[in-house]
């Protein structure tokens, strides 16, 4: 892929990196990254990936922008309240960078649509907000053979890992199945420091960019746990779990299915 004069200027701070160069920028422009969730984690990720010139960004989200989202979901503005999140987020991507093709999926990822959506992408970024959805992303990426970045946030802590199916430990190696519904803290108790979502989502975007560029060491076989109150990062090494129900020696999950949503998951009102 040859870059135009304008692209050379736009991406000059990438191109000047010997590890990236014009060739790496070409890889970014040819890459396709899917973001499941255009919320707290997805917002910084989609903004940075659009700025970086990721050629195709897919956005999957069935929600509309709510006033309570704006404390952390920085791709959306006050004027966007009530709009589909994918539309609001796509508009921001295009405004940052007209090189980016944005594909919108104004629906939630489900067992019956996941594999069809995932097949067109190189890397998947999990920015979902429920256990059911996170397990679905992990399972779908496993069955589709797509590398993905997982992240979860709660209150003042976040954690993230990158998974290359078939090669590295996966989300289910550590977290076998969703916690029982009665163990899940009620959503009104949970809460989250807004900027925490930004930090974790930005780390996920860095992993996506590294994967596309083939650079450095991915966050595989490690869970990175960030504590915003102590301002510490902790790397917890782990390896593939032979008893993993998804990628272990005798897996019990052999087809994609939806996990029951946790007790606190709210049913969204239909859009007007």
């Amino acid at each position, binding site marked *: 892929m040859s870059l135009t004069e304008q692209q050379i200027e736009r991406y000059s701070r990438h191109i000047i990196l010997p590890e990236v160069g014009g060739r790496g920028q070409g890889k970014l422009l040819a890459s396709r990254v899917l973001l499941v*969730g255009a*919320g*707290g*984690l997805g917002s910084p990720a989609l903004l940075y990936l659009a700025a970086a010139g990721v050629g195709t960004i897919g956005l999957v989200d069935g929600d509309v922008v*709510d006033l*309570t989202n704006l404390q*952390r979901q920085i791709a959306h503005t006050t004027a966007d309240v009530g709009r589909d999140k994918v539309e609001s987020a796509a508009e921001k991507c295009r405004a940052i960078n007209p090189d980016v093709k944005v594909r919108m999926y104004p629906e939630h990822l489900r067992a019956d649509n996941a594999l069809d959506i995932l097949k067109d992408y190189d890397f998947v970024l999990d*920015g*979902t*907000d*429920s*256990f059911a959805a*996170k397990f679905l992303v992990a399972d779908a990426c496993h069955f589709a053979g797509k590398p993905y970045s997982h992240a*979860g*946030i*709660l209150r003042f*802590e*976040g*954690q993230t890992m990158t998974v290359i199916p078939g090669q590295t430990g996966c989300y289910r*190696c*550590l*977290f*076998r199945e*969703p*916690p*029982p519904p*009665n*163990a*899940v*803290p009620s*959503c*009104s108790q*949970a*809460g*989250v420091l807004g900027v925490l*979502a930004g930090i974790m989502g930005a780390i996920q975007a860095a992993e996506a960019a590294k994967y596309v560029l083939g650079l450095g060491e991915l966050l595989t076989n490690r*869970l990175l*746990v960030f504590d915003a109150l102590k301002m510490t990062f*902790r790397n*917890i*090494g*782990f*390896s593939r*779990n032979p*008893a993993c129900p998804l990628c272990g020696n005798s897996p019990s999950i052999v087809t994609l299915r939806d996990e029951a949503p*946790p007790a*606190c998951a*709210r049913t969204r009102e239909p859009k007007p």
Partner: protein
Amino acid sequence: MKLKINEAATEVPDDLSIAELLAHQKVKMPDMVSVQVNGAIVDRSAFSATPVRENDSVDFLYFMGGGGKK
């Protein structure tokens, strides 16, 4: 005995199972925790039957679901 829990040196009573260790450490929602001992994940159904030993390195890994929904 001495353990490392989430990298912190911690003194706990001898002869504890993982389930007892979770209780001793006052983990409020043990169902929300995966436990790794010396780098290997322990199946939740084995928490009561699996002992922890002096100098074991134990990680409590918490489920984090969110996006912080309203």
